[in-house]
């Protein structure tokens, strides 16, 4: 049995038109016979009509502008944030790329302009031990004209004319040379200059040699040193340098022996023009007056054993360029 309450519950659905045909017929049959439910349906329709008749309110005239002002403010904040985060990349990337290219180009330019020196630095200076010291005498006057004399003898000129591998006494010396060609040109210049320009002053002991011979063994060394130090150094014509002499000194301890050698040389006034330690061998290139030679050999024998010696001074008036190789025993 369908009651009015059941029908009233279906009235809204009936009003919306969402009931099934059977339910719709059932409601319509009931409404035809029930004034109460008909009144309820009318009340629903009236309610909906009242709702639909509600007037629309109008937005205020400033409404759109106010909304858009807020929207644009928000958009600007968003854009400014985006710009802060990402906009710099639009500028920064090209600038950084350009700067990188500039740095690379500069680096290449520097490398190209300085590459000969770099190559010279990279070359191993092994010739200092194997090469004869005669070439050192050629290059040194250019660098240290006050301590090393330029060659004047015919033998020296011959030495200069020999096309042997160029010695590389030190890295510093090499750094001053751009290539081997400038060195050859420099040699020619030096050769041309030796006949005209006087060499740099060196220590000459020509006249003091005899005085040291007759003195006793005890004080002989001191006198030789005094004579060496007080020897006149202006006799340029008597000064001759004989290059190419070398000896090998076998010692127990290279370090201590080297110290002793430097001490002895320092005491005697013999000039050390080059020193190098390489591959366990200490090499000294010294400038030794002829009259000090025997004294030097004697002192070296107290330090170590002289293995081989080519010290055969032909001319007692000539100073000697001696390469002393100190090797472990």
């Amino acid at each position, binding site marked *: 049995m369908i009651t009015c309450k059941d029908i009233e519950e279906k009235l809204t659905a009936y009003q919306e038109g969402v009931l099934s045909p059977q339910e719709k017929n059932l409601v319509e049959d009931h409404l035809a016979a029930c004034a109460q439910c008909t009144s309820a349906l009318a009340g629903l329709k009236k*309610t909906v009509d009242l*709702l639909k008749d509600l007037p629309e309110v109008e937005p205020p005239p400033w409404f759109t502008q106010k*909304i858009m002002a807020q929207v644009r403010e928000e958009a600007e904040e968003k854009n400014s944030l985006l710009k802060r985060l990402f906009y710099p990349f639009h500028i920064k990337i090209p600038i950084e790329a350009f700067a990188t290219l500039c740095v690379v180009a500069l680096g290449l330019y520097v490398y190209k302009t300085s590459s000969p020196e770099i190559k010279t630095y990279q070359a191993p200076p092994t010739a200092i031990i194997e090469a004869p010291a005669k070439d050192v005498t050629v290059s040194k006057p250019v660098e240290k004209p006050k301590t090393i004399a330029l060659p004047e003898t015919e033998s020296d000129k011959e030495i200069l004319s020999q096309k042997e591998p160029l010695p590389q006494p030190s890295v510093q010396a090499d750094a001053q040379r751009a290539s081997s060609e400038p060195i050859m040109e420099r040699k020619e210049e030096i050769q041309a200059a030796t006949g005209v320009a006087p060499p740099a002053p060196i220590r000459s002991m020509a006249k003091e040699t005899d005085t040291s011979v007759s003195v006793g063994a005890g004080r002989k060394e001191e006198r030789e040193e005094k004579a060496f130090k007080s020897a006149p150094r202006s006799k340029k014509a008597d000064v001759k340098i004989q290059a190419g002499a070398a000896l090998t000194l076998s010692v127990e301890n290279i370090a201590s022996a080297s110290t002793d050698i430097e001490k002895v040389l320092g005491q005697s006034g013999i000039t050390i023009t080059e020193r190098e330690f390489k591959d366990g061998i200490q090499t000294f290139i010294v400038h030794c007056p002829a009259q000090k030679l025997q004294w030097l050999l004697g002192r070296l024998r107290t330090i170590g054993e002289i293995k081989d010696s080519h010290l055969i001074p032909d001319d007692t008036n000539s100073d000697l360029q001696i390469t002393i190789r100190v090797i472990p025993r």
Partner: protein
Amino acid sequence: MTGMSKREKDKKNFTLDDDDHYVSLCQKGNTNAFQVLVERHQKKMLNIAYRITGDYEEACETVQEAFLSAFKAIKKFRGEAAFSSWLTGITMNHARNRLKKIKSLSHHEGISIDDPVKTETGQVMCDPPTQEDSILEQLEKKELQAKVQECIGTLDDEFREVLVLRDIQEFSYDEIHDILNIPEGTIKSRLFRAREAMKNCLRHVLGVI
């Protein structure tokens, strides 16, 4: 209601495709395109908010917030529903939140003498109708509408929302489903109960319905 319904008028003024075009422009950062959408939808959103909140000023504030939220989130709009449905959903959320604030404030601030008088059950106290005059004669049309609005305000939020969307704004069930994200059966159920509650409220307010 005479002539074309509000919904039909809206559809005549613009189509959803037009919205999609401007939405697409907005998603590319064109704020002027968003202004077009604002001009198109502001009145409808304002009326929805007004019927939900029952206060014009609050409704204006609600719609401003809703449009701003829509602009912020427009890149997330994928077009699965109509833009108007999406925007209405945002407006409904803001209106719901604002209504909570209003209720909370009115609860703390007490009752104004200008507020509608409510009974203990929350229903609007009715004016005793006279037997001599008709209802339309007893109340002017404006007052009648105010009473209707008061009755809407007495409904629970979930009923009020469905009632406003369906009976006032005339959205379809599908659109209401998109807006409120609830099943169609729930929509119907809420709508029937909302109408029944409205009828009872109006009967109390107006005396006869």
